[in-house]
């Protein structure tokens, strides 16, 4: 959720409510010290009020997960729920602090406060990531694919590259001409060329079809070796750690070097191979960024539900004791 001008009303409300809650807390503390000579705590009426209010808001924030399960129910737009989740969630901070009187207690209450701090911080982190990462993905991943399809795309890229190289350089096994099956194979399932942003439109265009040769082209051995040694492992699924082509700069240098070793007839193939590698890099980056964008939820969500449970326990126990 991008925090933009459309959040103004929510921000104003939250800031105002925070200021008000702090002001009331200060008044309460002053009055308590002046008239009752007591320190603020959760068992005062003020503390209880803040406590129940915070519980209500925490419960509401936890409902967001359930709200997402009934997406098409007309019980308020999802973005309204999300905004309420963010801003009312932030509002719980002064309320919780005011409830405890800036006293974290021990055992259960201490655990609750630590949990609460973690939930809030993870939420804020998630908010920051959701504001920054999408823009990074948009700018750096023109070849972005649907996340669940990424590994399938890896296979397609490798298949395409295999066919390309086999058609030009012969079988990827030692010696031998291109197998008949490869020559008879239809056009690559996915042949992409990155289209630079021109006039605001960017996308993917199919690579030009090249004639397949029955025998390896003269001077193709360096390309074949390069492909088998560097490119093919790079295109496999899995981590790119330690791979020479992981860095775009390195990759550019290596390809340039290979270009110098191969005849001009193969330069077009090299160019296509380079773009396939670029796409592979982008997809690897997409995996990382996607992890960032959603990974924090694995901390935030379960801890939120745990927090709710503990807060409920605390509320019941405290009320009974009170």
């Amino acid at each position: 959720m991008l925090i933009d001008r459309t959040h103004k009303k929510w921000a104003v409300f939250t800031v105002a409510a925070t200021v008000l809650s702090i002001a009331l807390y200060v008044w309460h503390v002053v009055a308590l010290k002046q008239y009752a000579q007591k320190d603020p705590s959760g068992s005062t009426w003020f503390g209880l009020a803040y406590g129940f209010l915070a519980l209500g808001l925490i419960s509401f924030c936890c409902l967001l997960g359930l709200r997402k399960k009934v997406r098409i129910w007309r019980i308020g737009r999802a973005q309204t729920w999300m905004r309420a989740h963010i801003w009312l969630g932030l509002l719980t901070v002064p309320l919780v602090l005011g409830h405890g009187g800036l006293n974290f207690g021990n055992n259960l209450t201490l655990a609750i406060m630590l949990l609460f701090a973690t939930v809030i911080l993870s939420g804020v982190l998630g908010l920051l990531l959701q504001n920054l990462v999408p823009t990074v993905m948009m700018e750096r991943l023109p070849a972005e694919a649907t996340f669940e399809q990424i590994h399938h795309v890896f296979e397609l890229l490798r298949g395409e590259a295999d066919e390309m190289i086999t058609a030009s350089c012969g079988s990827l096994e030692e010696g031998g001409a291109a197998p008949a099956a490869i020559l008879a194979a239809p056009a690559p399932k996915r042949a992409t060329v990155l289209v630079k942003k021109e006039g605001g439109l960017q996308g993917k265009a199919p690579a030009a079809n090249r004639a397949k040769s029955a025998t390896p082209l003269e001077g193709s051995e360096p390309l074949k070796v390069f492909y088998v040694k560097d490119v093919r492992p790079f295109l496999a699924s899995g981590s790119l750690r330690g791979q020479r082509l992981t860095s775009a700069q390195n990759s550019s240098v290596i390809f340039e070097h290979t270009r110098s070793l191969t005849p001009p007839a193969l330069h077009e193939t090299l160019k296509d191979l380079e773009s396939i590698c670029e796409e592979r890099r982008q997809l690897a980056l997409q995996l990382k960024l996607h992890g960032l964008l959603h990974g924090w939820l694995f901390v935030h969500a379960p801890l939120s539900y745990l927090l709710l449970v503990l807060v409920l326990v605390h509320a019941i126990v405290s009320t009974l004791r009170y």
Partner: protein
Amino acid sequence: MPIFFAVQRGPAVAANARVMMPSAVTTIGSSPDADVSFPGVDGLAPLHVKVWLDGRDMKLEALDLSPVSVGGVKAVTHQIKLNTVFDLGANLSLKFEHTPSKSSAGGTSVNLNAVASKSGENKAIPALRPPTLKTSVQQAREIMDKAIADKAAAQAATLSKKQDPPTLPTKKTEDKSQAAKPSGNPEGPVIADTAPVTTPSEPPPIVPAAEKSDAASAKPVAAAKPVVAAKPAAPASKDPPRAIAEVQLPYGEPITLEELNKIPVFNGMPGKQMAKLPGSVVRRKFKKGEIICREGDYGFTAFYILQGACEVYIGSPLASVTSVKQEDKRGGFFGLLREFKHKLTGRKVDPTASTSRRMFIPVDGPEDLPMDNPIGKLKAGDLFGEMSCTSLYPRSATVRATEDCEMLEMLNNVLFALKDNPTYKVRYDADYRHRALSQHLRGVSILSGLDEEFINQLKERVELVSYKKGEIVVKEGDDSDAFYLIRFGNVKVSKHYAGGEVVLNYLGRSEFFGEVGLLHGGKRKATCTSLDHVECVRIRKPDFDFMLSWYDDIRENIEKIATERERAGELRAEGVPNVKIKDFLGQGLMQAQSLLLLDLNKCTRCDECVHACSDSHESVTRLVREGLRFDNYLVATSCRSCLDPVCMPGCPVGSIHRQESMEILIEDWCIGCGLCARNCPYGNISMHAFPGDAASEPAAGAPNAVAEMTELVKKAAPKDKKKAVTCDLCHELEEPSCVYACPHDAAHRVDARKFFASGGDVRASKV
């Protein structure tokens, strides 16, 4: 010129029981002597009848003739001289008054409306009667029925007499194979309602022969006079016609021209034409239970059943995933629960009600299939597969032989020749009127309120017209003179705006057009062009007006639809820029009336939009979060509700259509042929597979044939059957679910032209 009156309205009850004023039927002669027969008058004399015409007392002296017996009912025929010439199509108001004596006034009177129409012969035109009339015109009805029966008998007699086609005068008369060929599909529409009624003394009408390749403009059928061909035929050669190609259909045994001529409906086929393409018609035999053609398969031939019988059915289960009709319809607590659930999801209509206004599924055969029991019968003499043959559309239904059959399978050259054959044409049209026309009329939702009696009358009055590919059926701005019901083929409805022509809709079989002009202003509001071979049922304006005058609910429905269509057209006009449309359309995105854009700066790739779409459509998403990018927006793969929905034409069962608002709907009876998916240039229609044995169970009380067929379907249908799915803009809900469910304000539905015109402001261009 001869003028005839088609009397359309009659009185409810005659004031004097002994006097029957003209009501429904008049036997018409030719002016200036107009014979008007007053049925049911029994022995009254003298009978003085005054005639008013358009409010003018014609001051005619009605001659009281002797009563004559017509159909066993005594009637009196009066000879009236009007001495007036009328414009064709002129609406006339007649008033007849019967008075006991010449000088008396204020007798029984009746007002009748009539239309001056042109016809070349004495023809009893059965007038439309108001449906509430009962026994007061019982005798008149008997006269009308007899007149219709006599006409049908005369037609049959004409057909049986017409064995050898007349030959045209040619320079060389030795070539007897050059038979007269009817104009069939001339430059203009062929009016082919009923064959002209001729008296036995008159020769049968001859229509000019015109080769298909000829540019000669053939005239419509002019009966009662032999018509010579406008262009003399090519001189006959002594040598037999040379085959230009030999066709080899994959199955069946070729049939020779001589053998073909022995079959009555093929008798008179143009031998020269047939000889050019030998092998283009073959004889095929099917055993009982054999499948002749399967729905969704591509075909290029038509079949004519010589003997035997078949069943035609749609093998796909009538649902995409589950049938809405199977939803629990119980009342009480569960009914309340269901209603609450619908309220929660914001459904505008109750999904248990039929989402389609149709009662029949249009298929490529003589009859459409009823929605609740989609099985039809074919018998000897039936022709099916025309659309596949003429326009190469996929087969619309599965045909299975229910007994051993013998058929002719033919290519489109033979099919066109057959349909041009007057022998076949008359029978085909009569068969259509008898079997399918009332079904078609009733299948049109707005006409479903017509009662059987009225439909039976209407059937005899409509015209059956046909158009070639590219022909304009009605033109924007022309006078509206008829209402059209599409019997066969596809029609494009378009309108001209400042920036160019915009397609409003594509219409297929059992859809209709022409009502807007008839209701609002009398001028055509759009142009309708045939996309392929089109056959229409044409209801003339007087009949249409009469129908609306008697059926208020139909009038209301038609006016509602006409208003919706006009409004939809106006909305489109507002959005069409006053610039060259083709410049925008060339970019593809400008076609979109509702583009789903995902703001990539806000989108967290959570796929909530996709999940919401799936939840709204029984776990089948119509949206893919992948596609072209424009600036920071992703154009998701989802129906764009294009200005020109090229996905629509050609659906063999008419399941894809556009509502009066912009959304494209694919109904439950889609047979999964994939034509629309291939036609969509943006890949926004996908084929969704579902288990083949998910066929809906027959409803309780359904005929045994349905239960038996369901079992057959389950056995015959493949394990995985596909149906086309596309975004329908969540037409049952208040707002598209994808937009509603996005938690990050990243999904927007925009009007493409407004979006680009505003420089990418989604808020300013929201749909």
